[in-house]
């Protein structure tokens, strides 16, 4: 078997390939983006696609799984918020061929608007969740997830974090497992979730989760590594690696399946050690469960709820090791924050918005960097597609006076992700705001992925390129201007004219990303 070095994301792509996955859909988002890029670049056996957003991606993958193909949906942690609606009901339906959701959390956070802990989704949606702790496990658990999905009739989530996604390690490659397409079975009691069908399915999935829990008690996906009996550590994900690094002699219970949890195994482990500690990033997910089993345990009393763990933090918390550190320069070194590129087309827009002293309701993308020095020309930003709705809220609160002193700003891919419905709301509910769509012809922030306006698919095929101005007109915006933001005088004139008009308007500032070849 060939050994190679793979990033966690590449290992997941490989795992899907080896598992006989046929369909993969997702939306780009750090730290998950390379998974589908790797799929598209390395195999034609999987139909891979960028969907307009994570909800649609999950729906496509679910449809494919019901139609008999092993399928995978890929997204970052906040993407699963967008896809949560289908997730909770697909959970009731279950699958035909295996359905795996790859979910990448971002403790830190390094490249995200929050550091939510998505282990909670497994419990809330009643689906099994696996957590690899390095690249080899990322590949192996992706394969296992497909098996479990079919064995137990559940979607299965594989949760990774930045330190799994963007870490590299040695992986043993295996050949693709040929899994035949299953026939589509019309089964309304399973796939049409009206109340009369949902109630019995709920009882079914509660029984299924008990069955999976029994599997978790004996499967080697969870394992006890006995060391000395003085202290036992329960841990998951990359935290397991930190524990092995700094507490090599302690007993360890490694949870590879974080939900459902193996209660009996946890009790056996707890009885074998004098003191029980949980080492986990973010929320006390394991700790709370262990406490509910009536066991004495320490966790977040020692470790922070916020940010990533590191070997040094675990060493300090568990062993009392004082932080080791080399020299530090006596004064603050100038930081090197990411910044808009030189000659970025977005810069022209934000310079004008700054000069006009407008309040800017922003969105997610490279252009969010305009909130930072030197531009400091964005005043609100929350999640994908939120700008236009929040901007309408501004107007509902303060009326026309604020609408004519503010704009919402959203990128092309973000507009297609979830900005369109908010624009419909602005038109329908008689808002008069000005929306600027920064159309740089690509999904730039995550590394230039194709999108429905770029004219190409993830697999590199030419396709229809949606016309953003036409979409705006179609949903009822009568004043739509498309122009090159480099024409700054004209752009400024149009912005001033549109904010003064008491009707909704859209300005498409269209110019190719400076980094795009």
């Amino acid at each position: 078997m060939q050994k190679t070095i793979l990033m966690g994301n590449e290992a997941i792509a490989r795992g899907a390939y080896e598992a006989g996955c046929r369909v993969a859909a997702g939306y780009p988002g750090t730290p998950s983006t390379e998974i589908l890029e790797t799929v598209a670049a390395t195999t034609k056996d999987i139909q891979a696609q960028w969907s307009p957003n994570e909800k649609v991606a999950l729906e496509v993958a679910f449809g494919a799984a019901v139609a008999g193909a092993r399928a995978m949906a890929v997204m970052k942690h906040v993407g699963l918020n967008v896809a949560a609606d289908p997730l909770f009901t697909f959970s009731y339906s279950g699958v035909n061929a295996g359905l795996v959701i790859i979910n990448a959390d971002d403790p830190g956070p390094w490249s995200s608007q929050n550091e939510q802990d998505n282990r909670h989704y497994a419990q809330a949606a009643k689906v099994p969740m696996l957590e690899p702790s390095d690249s080899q496990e990322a590949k192996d658990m992706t394969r296992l997830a497909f098996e479990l999905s079919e064995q137990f009739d559940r979607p299965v989530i594989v949760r990774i974090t930045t330190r799994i996604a963007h870490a590299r390690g040695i992986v043993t490659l295996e050949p693709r497992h040929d899994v035949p397409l299953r026939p589509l079975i019309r089964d309304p009691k399973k796939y049409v979730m009206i109340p009369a069908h949902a109630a019995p399915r709920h009882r079914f999935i509660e029984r299924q989760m008990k069955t999976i829990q029994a599997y978790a008690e004996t499967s080697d996906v969870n394992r006890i590594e006995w060391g000395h009996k003085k202290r036992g550590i329960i841990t998951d994900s990359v935290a397991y690696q930190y524990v092995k690094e700094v507490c090599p002699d302690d007993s360890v219970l490694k949870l590879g399946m974080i939900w459902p949890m193996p209660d009996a195994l946890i009790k056996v482990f707890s009885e074998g050690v004098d003191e029980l500690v949980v080492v986990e990033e973010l929320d006390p997910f394991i700790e709370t469960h262990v406490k509910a089993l009536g066991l004495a345990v320490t966790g977040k009393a020692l470790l922070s709820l916020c940010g990533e763990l590191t070997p040094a933090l675990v060493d300090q918390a568990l062993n009392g090791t004082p932080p080791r550190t080399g020299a530090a320069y006596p004064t603050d070194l100038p930081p090197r924050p990411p910044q808009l590129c030189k000659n970025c087309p977005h810069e022209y827009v934000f310079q004008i918005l700054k000069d006009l002293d407008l309040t800017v309701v922003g969105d997610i993308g490279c252009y969010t960097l305009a909130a930072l020095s030197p531009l400091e020309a964005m005043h609100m930003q929350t999640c994908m597609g939120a700008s236009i709705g929040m901007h309408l809220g501004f107007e509902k609160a303060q009326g026309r006076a604020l609408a004519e002193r503010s704009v919402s700003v959203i990128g092309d891919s973000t507009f297609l992700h979830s900005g369109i419905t908010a624009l419909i709301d602005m038109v329908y509910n008689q808002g008069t705001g000005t929306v600027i769509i920064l159309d740089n012809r690509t999904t730039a922030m995550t590394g230039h992925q194709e999108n429905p306006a770029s004219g190409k698919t993830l697999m590199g095929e030419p396709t229809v390129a949606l016309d953003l101005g036409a979409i705006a007109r179609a949903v009822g915006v009568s004043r739509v201007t498309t122009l090159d933001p480099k024409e700054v005088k004209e752009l400024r004139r149009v912005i001033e004219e549109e904010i003064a008009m008491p009707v909704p308007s859209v300005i498409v500032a269209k110019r190719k990303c400076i980094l795009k070849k």
Partner: protein
Amino acid sequence: MTNVIFAGVGGQGVILSTKVLMHVALSQGYDVKESEIHGMAQRGGSVDCHVRFGEQVHSPLIAPGTADFIVALELLEAARRLDFLAPQGRIITDTRQIDPMPVLTGQMTYPDDLADWLDHHSNACCLVETGPALKILGSSRVLNVVMLGVLSQYLTFDAETWQNSLKATVKPQHVDLNLHAFELGRTLLGSS
């Protein structure tokens, strides 16, 4: 266990350096892991990669005070990681300065004593002047591989192993340039 931190600015090719070193370690039978933060790399932010190789590697992250080598492609990025250097560790840094945004906007100044300071606060410090080598190579894009050549003088792997890993890692059309960059790096030593 050997711990190496590569540091630089987005676009300098820090990640390629780590891939080559990892390939070398794998080819010599070591376990090897790496962790990187690159989400913002394309936008000119700081990039650093931790590489660890040895009998068995658990954590992909290096703890402060335990790096055997810090290989930096820019002075400020070297200084930023000095707290990771082990007491017996070695800094290998290019002496170039790339002004970050707070310096460009005049809010902060680029410290003018970083090279001296690094030299005084480390057990071993190689301040590498890569300008002449890059002039011969005709491309500053291979600075990462020149610095890998410098690093290779302090590790036990032979030149052929490095060359094979370079060939396996870089794009075919860039192999010759990278092999040349590596060779020149092997002739460069720090000023102290």
